[in-house]
């Protein structure tokens, strides 16, 4: 007689009330994963999908074959970008609480991912980001005031109040207009990269997706097209362990890792310590070189942890232990890079504290400047006319009638 079937629903190790437990997360030693040549046969590096590339060790040293790509100045700049992003987040989070905007999403704990990645790209390359990659803009020098204008939907909002806060767009900075619909843009990144190849250009694209969103179908579409046409694209999965209240095990299912998804497509798949600025940058650089040299796509899983709430509408204490973030074994990306720079003798606690203060001043100054243009519920706003405009290159008659009806 056959036993009855049982229904299996994956569960996180602990829930609120329990003690955080990451003992099941294997963390390879920094420097232990080899760096293959960029023309490697993807079949020869399948194991990289199950390891983690790390550069900074516990003592703050940069070790192993992925180390040594960045100068001290570049690292100091990276530190500043991460600190800026964190300060920016804190202010905007507060601005939302003060009713200056409707919504905000922060990057706490994940600052290294996008900031380090951005520096591996070249001008003209294009990112197709999710809502948690503002680091791309910060690291590319996009003005914070403009970001805030967008968040406030004020009169200077470059998107005219049409988009939700943080759904930035900047072609100039290689940052594709963010969509609120998850995963849709992953496959668009592949299309952009295909277009670059079709045009005999040298520019590459990067797609971004969260761990939870890899479950969406467009993730598959992206891999199918990238694999088939060897598109010059970097496919990033930011595994921050959570998708709102849902732990990564629901999206990942029985696969050991998200990087493993690449194996079924013959796409080289690497996992990287997402809280290690140097590692993220080195892996991104490797993938960018591959793409630009016509070797096709690379899948990168950035292993990190969403230390904050999903968004200002979320309270994570309802679904995970409060202290889970402190127990995260890969540490804090800012602290780790700071320690490394201190160890190298180019940074100190004092300079760090000073930089923090300076950065805060800059952010606050930007905020003051932005608020001169208004915030969501006060001051000047994008006009009602702006609501009707810009949908089509030329306004069709029915919309013109509606605009007249609206009296604008």
């Amino acid at each position: 007689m056959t036993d009855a079937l049982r229904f299996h629903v994956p569960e996180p190790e602990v829930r609120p009330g329990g003690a955080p437990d990451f003992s099941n997360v294997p963390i390879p030693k920094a420097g232990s994963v080899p760096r293959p040549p960029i023309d490697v046969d993807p079949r020869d590096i399948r194991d990289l999908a199950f390891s983690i590339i790390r550069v900074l060790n516990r003592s703050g040293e940069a070790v192993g074959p992925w180390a040594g790509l960045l100068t001290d100045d570049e690292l100091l700049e990276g530190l500043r970008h991460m600190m800026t992003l964190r300060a920016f987040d804190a202010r905007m989070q507060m601005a939302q609480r003060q009713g200056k905007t409707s919504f905000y999403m922060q990057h706490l704990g994940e600052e290294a991912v996008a900031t380090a990645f951005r520096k591996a790209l070249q001008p003209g390359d294009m990112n197709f980001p999710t809502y948690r990659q503002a680091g791309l803009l910060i690291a590319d020098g996009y003005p914070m005031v403009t970001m805030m204008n967008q968040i406030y939907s004020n009169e200077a909002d470059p998107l005219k109040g049409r988009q939700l806060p943080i759904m930035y767009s900047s072609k100039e900075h290689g940052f594709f207009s963010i969509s609120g619909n998850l995963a849709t843009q992953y496959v668009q990144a592949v299309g952009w990269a295909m277009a670059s190849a079709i045009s005999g250009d040298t520019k590459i694209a990067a797609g971004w997706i969260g761990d939870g969103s890899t479950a969406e179908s467009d993730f598959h579409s992206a891999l199918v097209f990238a694999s088939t046409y060897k598109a010059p694209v970097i496919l990033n999965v930011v595994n921050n362990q959570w998708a709102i209240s849902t732990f990564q095990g629901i999206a990942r299912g029985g696969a050991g890792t998200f990087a493993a998804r690449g194996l079924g497509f013959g796409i080289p798949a690497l996992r990287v310590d997402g809280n290690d600025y140097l590692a993220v940058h080195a892996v991104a650089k490797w993938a960018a070189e591959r793409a630009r040299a016509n070797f096709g796509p690379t899948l990168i899983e950035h292993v990190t942890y969403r230390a904050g709430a999903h968004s200002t509408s979320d309270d994570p204490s309802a679904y995970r232990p409060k202290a889970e973030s402190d127990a995260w074994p890969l540490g804090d990306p800012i602290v780790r890079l700071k320690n490394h720079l201190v160890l190298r003798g180019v940074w100190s606690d004092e300079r760090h504290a000073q930089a923090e203060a300076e950065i805060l001043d800059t952010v606050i100054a930007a905020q003051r400047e932005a608020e001169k243009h208004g915030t969501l519920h006060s001051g000047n706003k994008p006009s009602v006319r702006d609501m009707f405009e810009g949908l089509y290159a030329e306004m069709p008659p029915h919309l013109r009638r509606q605009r007249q009806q609206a009296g604008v």
Partner: protein
Amino acid sequence: MPRKTMIEAIRDAMDVSMGRDEKVVVFGEDVGFFGGVFRCTQGLQAKYGKSRCFDAPINESGIVGTAIGMAAYGLRPCVEIQFADYMYPAYDQLTQEAARIRYRSNGDFTCPIVVRMPTGGGIFGGQTHSQSPEALFTHVSGLKTVVPSNPHDAKGLLIAAIEDPDPVIFLEPKRLYNGPFDGHHERPVTAWSKHELGEVPDGHYTVPLGKAAVRRPGSAVTVLAYGTMVYVAQAAAEETGIDAEVIDLRTLLPLDLDAIVASVKKTGRCVVVHEATMTSGFGAELAALVQEHCFYHLEAPVARVAGWDTPYPHAQEWDYFPGPARVGRALIETMEA
């Protein structure tokens, strides 16, 4: 009788249904442990276990697709799409599969699923948390489409939907979750505890699919509305002093055409209101039907008040929303026509 919010009423409907029929299962994104981002499924996993209420991967097509398979097996899945704006990946499964399985298999297989989704704007959700896609469902033969406007109906309609032998799209106007909202966003929010339709009987009852309700009797003009717009229409009637009859359609398909025709033949005028984009919205179908069935009774063209033909903007939310002023203007124009 106990008063409940619409969220509590919806949760109660699932609770009652799960308690009565073990074939009822509930799943969706963040629906299990956490109980849904709007908390509509809170407590159901604790009460009925992980096999009856669980978290799903973020894949709307998979959520609906697996629900269809479960229904073919014999279960009665009631699934949640986190926002109606995210139903598009599931649109293929809903329209090409769920809607057609009974027909194409001549009843060999059926598809008793309910797909719940919060709909409508008014929470500064921008273009991806505010949509009202009802017309995309009413055009599809084989689906039923329901839009409750209050806790009492929400519970009764949801139980009826779960018990229905065919696929039902259940659109929940999120701006009504916590109170009847009449479009006056500048005024304090009214709670359901202050409203008689917040009275929700305990236990099992149904509100039948396909029956409209008159929310405000009147003789001068008929207003056809559903969801949030029911309250906006009532407010517009009060504010203009026009003796409008406000009909809450409750179910868009099957539609209670008899109730509509009876009212319009009585009033001789009709205004159709909805929050969705105007062009090819469900209001077009209503206007077409009214002029077809009541042509000789109509004293003015059927007017439509709806969301503009643009995406739902963030900052201009209240310019987009067809509030009481716009509906009122349409009432006046229709009376003066």
